[in-house]
């Protein structure tokens, strides 16, 4: 398997979208380079706007362009586009239901040594709580491209979170994308790991490892559509009785919270473990170090799932 840098894939694929549809415009806030939008800028200078270091203005400006019928892709780091410009997203994009695609790179702690200012570990909770916004997280290069293709014809606000750590290629180029969709990467019946983004590759490796070591089959579901969420996939996973939800996001408000709500409302009894970034500020460190520390990597997921599988079912007292 080869690896991809999703930020590069997304940023550079904008050129393809720009060629496909003349209404595609990009708005940057001094991070066109960071967001890998330069090829679009060179080909379509009139359709590329840079508002300077002003994320609030970037989002409002994007809403204005969308008001005039353009398909607007606004790029920044996840924390800046979802937090600095949060109210602009809510009021100018979501309230008006504008055709603006918000792309947040540096999702989760993938910004690593840049530290907490440049991490986006709150973005899913924030974006998912805003009406009209569809929230996606990408885990693979082909998925990213198909999602961008899909977004072109989807006349609604979208938030796409994108990490900057390399990810294994998982999907072929025909993968289907839809709001409320998910993808079962590995089938399994003894337990399930529901995950998104950078974690999917680790979950696949963990599933293989557990199969080899214990013979147990662990399902891996890529919950790439975080809002709306694929409830059926969650209910089915919960039937295994051993569910781990893992995301590079604060354990509060992310995929774990959303999945737990679905399971609770369905009234399904299952063991459930939510893995993510703990609800405290963590000093800057490399992303890989943190994925290991917080059990989001292959080793961590393997250990956590094996301990779930080994649990002794308590005997009911008679």
């Amino acid at each position, binding site marked *: 398997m080869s690896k991809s840098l999703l930020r590069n894939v997304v940023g550079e694929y904008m050129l393809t979208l720009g060629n496909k549809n003349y209404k595609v415009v990009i708005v940057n806030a001094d991070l066109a380079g960071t967001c890998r939008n330069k090829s679009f800028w060179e080909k379509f200078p009139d359709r590329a706007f840079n508002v300077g270091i002003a994320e*609030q203005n970037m989002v*409002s*400006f994007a809403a*204005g362009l969308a*008001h*005039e019928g353009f398909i607007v892709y606004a790029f920044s780091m996840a924390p800046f586009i979802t937090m600095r410009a949060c109210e*602009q997203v809510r*009021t100018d994009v979501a309230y008006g239901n504008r055709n603006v695609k918000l792309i947040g790179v540096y999702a989760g702690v993938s910004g690593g040594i840049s530290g907490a200012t440049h991490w986006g570990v709150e973005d899913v909770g924030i974006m998912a709580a805003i009406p009209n916004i569809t929230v996606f997280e990408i885990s693979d290069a082909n998925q990213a491209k198909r999602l961008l293709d899909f977004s072109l014809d989807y006349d609604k606000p979208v938030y796409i979170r994108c990490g900057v750590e390399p990810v294994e290629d998982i999907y072929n180029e025909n993968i289907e994308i839809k709001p409320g969709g998910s993808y079962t990467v590995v089938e399994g019946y003894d337990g399930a790991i529901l995950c998104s983004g950078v974690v999917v590759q680790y979950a696949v490796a963990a599933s293989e490892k557990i199969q080899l070591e214990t013979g147990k089959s662990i399902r891996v579901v890529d919950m790439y559509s975080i809002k709306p969420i694929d409830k059926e996939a969650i209910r089915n996973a919960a039937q295994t009785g051993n569910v781990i939800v893992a995301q590079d996001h604060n354990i509060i408000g992310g995929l774990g919270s959303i999945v737990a709500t679905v399971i609770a409302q369905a009234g399904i009894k299952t063991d459930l473990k939510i893995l993510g970034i703990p609800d405290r500020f963590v000093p800057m460190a490399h992303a890989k170090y943190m994925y290991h520390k917080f059990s989001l990597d292959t080793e961590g997921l393997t250990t956590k799932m094996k301990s779930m599988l080994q649990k002794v079912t308590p005997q009911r007292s008679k």
Partner: protein
Amino acid sequence: MKTVKELDKAAMEIRVNLLRLCNREVIHIGGDLSITDVMTVLWLNQIHYDPQNIYDETRDRFILSKGHASAVTSFCQAALGCFSPEDVINEYATDQGRFSMHSCNLVNPYVEVSTGSLGHGMPVACGIAAGLRLKGNTSSRVYTVMGDGEQSEGSIWEAAMNAVHYKLGNLVAVVDCNGLEADGFIKDITGLNDIAEKYRCFGWNVIEIDGNNIAEIKNAFANLPQASSLQPTCIIAHTVKGKGVSFMENNVRWHTGKITEDELEKALSELYSAYERRWSA
């Protein structure tokens, strides 16, 4: 084109409607009254906007950045024929109504962009102006009306830089300089100082007028640079909060409020007699 007298009469009638509404519901009466004259001239004499064809590509766009001036906007649109003034009065602040404390596009299609939170309208207007340019529309203008208190929002100045950089000569931003914000006089709250100088310094074409003088307003609008020009225009409208009603003028108490029957009677008689005085000679 309407005469100054016709516009003055229309402004007086809009103030009458505002006060009638203010007798029934709490509205942002102070900031409605300060900008009534500008809004009247803008909506009844200036803007290219057909109530029968509100998605016409060639229309001018209006974005109410000071979203709390929703009542005066609705009465101006009523005067243009979008709906009747009685619709505004009857539906305002009702649970199924089209009109309320701020402008909402979900229920009122004549609202180009929903507003209420300050510092949003101006940057959205910049995006619209840039979008019109990109579409090759060289005739439509984008009008946005802000408050002077609103100038404290940093996003306004982000947009102010942006508008000049992208040479948005199709953008006309009006600042309703009534000197007051919700908590008191702006000069007692923050160091805003000379707004006109600030916009000039940012590179805007700045016009300063008495924003409660119909003739000056009409003249300022009539002499705007072409929409195809390359510099955005800022109209600094010096106004009086609560203009036209003696007990409301320049009084922070009337940022929002509701008036009694007696107060309504007094306010209306002041408006009528002031209008008579202006045009009796």
